[in-house]
């Protein structure tokens, strides 16, 4: 694949998907700067591997698999697990908003997501933000459908506990 062809296809892909990737990364990391770093790293690797990305059945799914797996790898390597933010102002700062802009529910959701394990958060992002079905989510995470279902169930239970049972519904997906 010649560089011009690669550049054109990559540019089109970034225009179409980068914003969604950053938003998904924000949900995964809970942090603006970390999300941007994560996406930059993933996009760089996607460019290097572009012939493989372009020939994948679903290049977008390939990209989000790379995003979630990189997030999980980095979290595992660093042995870091996001702490539940004690101070809502910290959460607001990480979200890049002011108190006036961010509702109480949003802060609560940030705390609730931060309280999930990384893999549960990845399941929530893939299933409920990107709206992949159980089978695709399992394939992207390299695990069984049963694992996705159980992780999803635990994650939703945690979110309902944190936000109040009536605050969320799972939707039809």
């Amino acid at each position, binding site marked *: *694949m*010649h*560089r011009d062809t690669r*550049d054109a296809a*990559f*540019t089109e892909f*970034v*225009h179409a998907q*980068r*914003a969604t990737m*950053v*938003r*998904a990364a*924000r*949900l995964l990391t809970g942090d603006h700067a970390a999300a941007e770093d994560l996406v*930059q790293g993933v*996009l*760089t*690797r*996607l*460019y*290097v*591997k*572009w*012939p*493989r990305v372009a*020939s994948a059945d679903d290049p977008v799914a390939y990209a989000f698999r790379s995003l979630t797996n990189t997030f999980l790898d980095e979290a595992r390597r660093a042995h870091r697990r996001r702490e539940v933010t004690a101070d809502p102002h910290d959460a607001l700062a990480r*979200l*890049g*908003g002011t108190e006036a802009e961010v509702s109480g*529910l*949003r802060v609560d*959701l*940030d705390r609730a*997501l931060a309280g999930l394990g990384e893999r549960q958060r990845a399941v*929530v*992002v893939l299933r*409920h*933000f990107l*709206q992949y079905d159980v089978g695709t989510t399992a394939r992207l995470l390299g695990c069984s459908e049963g694992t996705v279902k159980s992780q999803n169930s635990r994650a*939703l239970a945690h*979110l309902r506990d944190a936000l109040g049972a*009536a*605050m*969320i*519904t*799972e*939707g039809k*997906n």
Partner: protein
Amino acid sequence: MPELHDLLHDHAGEVRDTDVAADLRRGHRALTRRRARFAGGTLAACAAATAAVVAWPGDRPDQRPDGAPVATEGPATPSATPEQTPPAGLLESDFMYYPDLGHGFTAARDEGASIIFTRNGAPAGSLLDSPTLYMSTPNQPQKFGGTVEYEGRTFYRQVGADAIRDHMWGISTELPDGWWVTLQVTDDAGLTEREVLDFLHHVEVKKGVHEGAAKR
């Protein structure tokens, strides 16, 4: 009662700036670094293997370690020594035995640790232009790309982004003694992966070459 999907969308916020040019620049730099690293490793491996063998007189199957020729009945060629008879069906180069590559390719340049193949007796260009078989020392493992099993051995496939150039691909495998052999081919060579796997599976490095390098 809000759905989780809506909450997450709201929570993820908006992304205003998308600097595609910066992403492209980072990609260019990463690809250049990767290719330079790979090419450096490959060429260094060729050079190291060649230097290791050439610098050690005893490596030559037709010479003793002190550099004196081995007394033979016929010409002092590697094949003249009894233990260096080419295995059946294999061709012989200075340091390796290899099967016919097919598709009209023959060895156009034998540089010891590397052999460049061309069609119809065409002169050999660089190893980036033609199919090239090369050896790598054990400290230069050619573990690039994904793996494929063939005849009970593991082969590494350098295709797509893992290839040294966009128009090339290659396959490497480790020999029982830790050395590596790689066949790198151009897309237009017409060789299939199966053909390359089978070719590499039959490649052998001459015994004296290993021993000489091991002494270094």
